[in-house]
């Protein structure tokens, strides 16, 4: 047997163990990425092999939490894909404005930048006080960071450029206060966002949403888990609601696809049909 095959078996056993003990199910994550992440995690850990890690992992919650941090990729930015946010501003917000109040779910929000970007956008479009956002993630460490709303100051230049390209109407600097090497987001952006843990592989739906954003999360999933997520989003969305995916995720060939029309190809903004 080749060493690669042994490692495959070890990884499968490890994920199985994690699922049984902690209820976190990573078995339907796409192989290539998770293998990369796990190999990286192992190299940084005190263990020589996955089998060695296994026994501690199953007994020590701290080790498990470090594994979750190692597996999940939390890379994000303010106004990531500015063209997407511009399209939301121009083509989605006019519909949202017809409601007295809207609910939005950010699934896989990482450190919160996407939710904060939406808050800025909605406030600028005159919807302040008329929305509530639920921003969820599997990784509680990033959720903690997200609720703090603090970012490295050196990112602000890049974020400002994104904001402008996304059609920002004010000055991005109005939204944060600089403290040494950190940028602290304004409290007005935080007050209508609820950050909460939610695992797309095992947890249930969030009811009556007008908009669901799940961007760059399902790229890490195998087809079956993608379908599960999409079912979840579909049952969470009101008719006429919007589903926003990452640029490399689509509803093409997906079961729920026929109930949606694509609003702004290729930006992956879909609208759920009525009836």
């Amino acid at each position, binding site marked *: 047997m080749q060493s690669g095959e042994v490692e495959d078996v070890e990884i499968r056993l490890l994920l199985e163990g994690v699922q049984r003990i902690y209820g976190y199910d990573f078995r339907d994550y796409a192989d*290539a*990425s998770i293998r990369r992440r796990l190999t990286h995690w192992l190299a940084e850990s005190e263990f020589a092999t996955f089998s060695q890690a296994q026994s501690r992992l199953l007994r020590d919650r701290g080790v498990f939490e470090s594994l979750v941090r190692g597996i999940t990729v939390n*890379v994000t930015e303010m106004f990531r894909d500015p063209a997407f946010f511009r399209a939301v501003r121009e083509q989605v917000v006019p519909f949202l404005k017809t409601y007295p109040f809207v609910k939005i779910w950010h699934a896989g929000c990482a450190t919160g930048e996407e939710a904060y970007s939406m808050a800025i956008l909605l406030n600028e479009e005159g919807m302040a006080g008329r929305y509530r956002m639920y921003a969820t993630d599997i990784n509680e460490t990033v959720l903690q960071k997200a609720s703090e709303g603090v970012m490295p100051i050196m990112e602000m230049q890049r974020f400002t450029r994104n904001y402008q390209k996304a059609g920002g109407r004010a000055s991005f600097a109005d939204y944060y206060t600089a403290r040494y090497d950190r940028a602290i987001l304004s409290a007005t952006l935080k007050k209508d966002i609820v950050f909460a843990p939610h695992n797309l592989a095992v947890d249930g739906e969030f009811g009556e949403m007008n908009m669901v954003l799940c961007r760059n999360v399902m790229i890490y999933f195998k087809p079956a888990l993608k379908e599960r997520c999409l079912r979840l989003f579909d049952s969470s969305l009101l008719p006429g609601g919007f589903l926003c995916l990452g640029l490399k995720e689509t509803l*093409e060939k997906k079961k729920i696809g026929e109930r949606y029309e694509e609003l702004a190809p290729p930006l992956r903004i879909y609208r759920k049909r009525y009836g």
Partner: protein
Amino acid sequence: MARLFKAVVVGVSTGGVLALQKLLGQLPADFHLPILIVQHIGPDAGSGLAKLLDERCALRVKEADEQDEILPGTAYLAPPNYHLLVERGGFLSFSADPYVSFARPSVDVLFESAAEVFGPELIGVVLTGANFDGSRGLMTIKQKGGVAIVQDPEDAEARQMPQAAMAATDVDYVLALDGMAALLLKLASGRAAISHKGTGAR
């Protein structure tokens, strides 16, 4: 000894647009191996390059999409801002992981994941570029028994990437772009002699 391959992976950076036009342009529409390509591009590059290459080459060239099945006669370009990976069963996948070897998409990520899936049935090609991405990946391809081809640094618009690849591993072929399509055709049809130790036709 003849052997059969399942895929070709290509990594290229500075000077890549011209290099890819030349290499892909010399392959016939019925070239029977799929080609997976990482060309370093900025995060906002759009998918213009795939369109341009598709127009100018007999091969079908497209930007890789979610759950694309890897088909013969087709070249798949990694999209801007995502790593491109190969899954078991011959599907493509993406990741938004941090930069690897200072790049996203990164050549190393594609090469390593492809080597994992295709083992000895993979051909890795490193072309012109002004950095070191791809050398670790090419090493992995060789370790898994695949074939390594590098553009002759003298022939490359930027020589660093080919040179780094040659320093990292014992490559099988070093040659100018002009002969590369012919070599790929020969390898693909099992007509080229390949040594497993990397002492092939230099």
